[in-house]
């Protein structure tokens, strides 16, 4: 159960880290919290020749949140700090809620939101809410800084749009819409500790009991977390009503392509998408109506 041998680098700036990645080539891995990477190494899934640890880079753990500028979560910001951040809880409850339901206390004290995204598990708990918020990732590489919609970042299980010499430095969500609310709900065998069998993130805005904006994203039921635009379209422009919510949840389930695996059967997943989507929509609707 020991780890294979590797070189360890702890650069003090992003340009230094990028330079190291360029020099070290494709066998090097970026490490933030290490809670995914070290487990994969221990299970001999990956064998990096070098680790570039970015957690100690000053300022990379930044969390900036306000109503006018939106949300920025730096690559080294811990899941625990995002989960308990009072302003994130107030303005982006789906984001803090998802961080809180990721793994356990110890892992939240080590792991990061951005690391969870970069690991690109279809079941990544922090992906659905950030996708529903139309978040972007900030990427730095030898060619400078670029921004990519999170939806274009996920390419498949464990696959992202990141080049080997690039680092995700932050994930950013736009300012919250007026009278909007979000919720993330997930199901897994062992409370919320192990990987989710189903996760649903929703963000919606209501005006005079009419839904003016809806985003629904399902995790763990396709090769990447997926948006379900047909379900959103059914809600948008219509009066907020339990029957429409039920129909939208049903459509969401019909658009997912869950598989049978050790965490749940495809059939169970199908049924639970409907249940979770309905619950998430009802809860988000109640919060949005209060705003």
């Amino acid at each position: 159960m020991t780890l294979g041998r590797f070189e360890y680098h702890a650069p003090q700036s992003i340009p230094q880290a990028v330079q190291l990645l360029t020099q070290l080539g494709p066998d090097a891995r970026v490490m933030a919290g290490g809670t995914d990477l070290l487990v994969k190494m221990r299970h001999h899934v990956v064998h990096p020749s070098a680790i570039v640890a970015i957690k100690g880079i000053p300022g990379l753990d930044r969390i900036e949140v306000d109503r006018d500028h939106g949300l920025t979560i730096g690559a080294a910001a811990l899941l625990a700090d995002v989960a308990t951040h009072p302003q994130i809880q107030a303005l982006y409850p789906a984001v803090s809620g998802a961080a809180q339901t990721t793994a356990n206390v110890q892992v939240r004290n080590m792991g990061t939101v951005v690391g969870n995204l970069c690991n690109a598990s279809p079941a990544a708990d922090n992906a659905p809410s950030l996708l529903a918020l139309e978040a972007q990732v900030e990427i730095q590489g030898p060619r400078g800084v670029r921004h990519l919609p999170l939806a274009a970042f996920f390419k498949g299980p464990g696959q992202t749009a990141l080049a080997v010499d690039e680092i995700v430095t932050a994930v950013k969500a736009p300012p919250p819409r007026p009278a909007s609310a979000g919720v993330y709900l997930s199901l897994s065998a062992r409370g919320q500790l192990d990987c989710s069998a189903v996760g649903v993130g929703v963000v919606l805005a209501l005006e005079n009991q009419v839904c003016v904006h809806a985003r629904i994203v399902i995790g763990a039921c396709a090769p990447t977390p997926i948006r379900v635009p047909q379900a959103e379209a059914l809600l948008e422009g219509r009066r907020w009503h339990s029957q429409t919510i039920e129909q939208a949840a049903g459509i969401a389930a019909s658009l997912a392509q869950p598989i049978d695996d050790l965490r749940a059967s495809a059939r169970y997943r199908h049924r639970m998408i409907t249940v979770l989507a309905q619950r998430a929509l009802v809860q988000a609707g109640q919060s949005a109506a209060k705003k």
Partner: protein
Amino acid sequence: MKHHIRIQVNGDLHELAVDPWRTLNQVLREDLNLTGTKFGCGSGDCGACTVMVDDRSVSSCLTLAVAVDGKKVTTVEGLAPSGDRLHPIQEAFIANGAIQCGFCTPGMEISALHLLRCNPNPDERQIRSAIAGNLCRCTGYNKIVKAIAAAAQASPGMSEGDDTP
């Protein structure tokens, strides 16, 4: 290449040369003979290896020793540094019969310490979620939850600034 690190473990400063692939768990158990901290699953699921690094509880099996350079580590041995007087959490575990085989106990106690420092008056739900990452295969959770509640009552001042662990 070995890396030179300085870590403070239970108040004692250690200077060590470590290979980068060695975990904090290995260094504590094999180099410093602090075998109170256990090695369980190796993947952050069981909590048997839980220690405090600065003010946070972490899995020592998923923490590289090289990454804790300059930090303070508290292990279960640090709960009762004198070796005779036990920490209120440990007293509460004994008084409530919260120990059976003992393998999960060091991790449970460190998780309890982290909880009580963050939240001196936890309710039962908060206690259960605080130890959700600590498995007890003797299935003694009820007594462990009771013990942590009793420790909170017995010792309300386990604040973060408190230097006695």
